[in-house]
């Protein structure tokens, strides 16, 4: 259940970024999770529910954007969506392929209510 440690890393970063940006109450955190990231969205969400309320307001929302896996063939350049984790180029069938999307856990944006300028703190 490494989702818990990833969520903790995420929350530490959010606190730092919001503080550096002038502070405020965190209302929403948008995160991209790739299908090949090794993250189970349900476990990530439950870890967030548990940990986020310790440092942010009760109504701070997590918005997860689940991203499919895409790859590019290094031999023929074909870009394709990986189905059933088969990393074989559908065009030439031979080339090594590189994952270009889908293995990330990415903090995309943070929505902050700055009416109450208490740096990243619980309201």
């Amino acid at each position: 259940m490494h989702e818990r440690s990833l969520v903790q890393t995420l929350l530490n970063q959010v606190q730092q970024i919001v503080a550096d940006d002038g502070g405020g109450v965190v209302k929403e955190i948008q995160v991209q999770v790739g299908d090949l990231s090794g993250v189970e969205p349900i476990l990530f969400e439950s870890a967030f529910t548990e940990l986020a309320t310790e440092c942010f307001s009760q109504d701070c929302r997590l918005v997860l954007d689940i991203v499919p896996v895409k790859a590019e063939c290094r031999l023929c350049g074909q870009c394709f969506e990986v189905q059933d984790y088969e990393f074989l180029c559908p065009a030439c069938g031979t080339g090594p392929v590189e994952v270009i999307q889908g293995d990330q856990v990415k903090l995309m944006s943070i929505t902050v209510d700055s009416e109450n300028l208490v740096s990243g703190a619980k309201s």
Partner: protein
Amino acid sequence: MNTRVISVRRDIQAEQKADAAAERERLGRRGTLVINLLSSPGSGKTSLLEATARHWAGRRSMAVLVGDLETDRDAQRLAPLVPVAQLTTGGACHLELPLVQRGLQALGDPAVDFLFIENVGNLVCPASHDLAEHLRVVLISTTEGDDKPGKYPKMFRTSQAMVVTKQDLLPHVPFSIEAVTEDALKIQPALNVLTSCAIDNRGIQEWCEFLEQQYQKKIESVYEPAGNR
């Protein structure tokens, strides 16, 4: 109410990945190939390391960092053969770089040829953590079924080699090396596939030769080990 959106667009593990890359560079420069060994519990990581240590005795230097949730039983098995440090996670399902760095310090940061990290037995979480390894090796034993690659794709996608262990049990279990290889190569076509049996030493020489080749490819051809200066 004044609401604003802060755009970030950053990998949340970017800092950890940068730390791992710096540690990998440091260890590579002074001539150490780091191998992260991953598998289910009981697939034979410790036995493979014992056989490797016996094979290289007096010819190649190696050290082992042993990750376990509890106990130091595996470390006790290896200690008579090679320098070893125990990394006890206290229940956590994977190792992270700071724990590996503490283990290295406990060993006195030895300039060995091969540093093995015996990860916690788990095919899920360890796949998401870079431990500064130059080589990621996944083990799969003949007793655990040949359908694992498709079930744990990230682990096999991010590995450079797969070792099928407990080869001696093949006549007794419904396991096909062809099937597991085909399954794994769909996920990682560049995967090196090896077989071994730590009890009768089958495949150990090939495994050690594979590691020597990786050493030449990733260390000797990239860095200038301190001993060569």
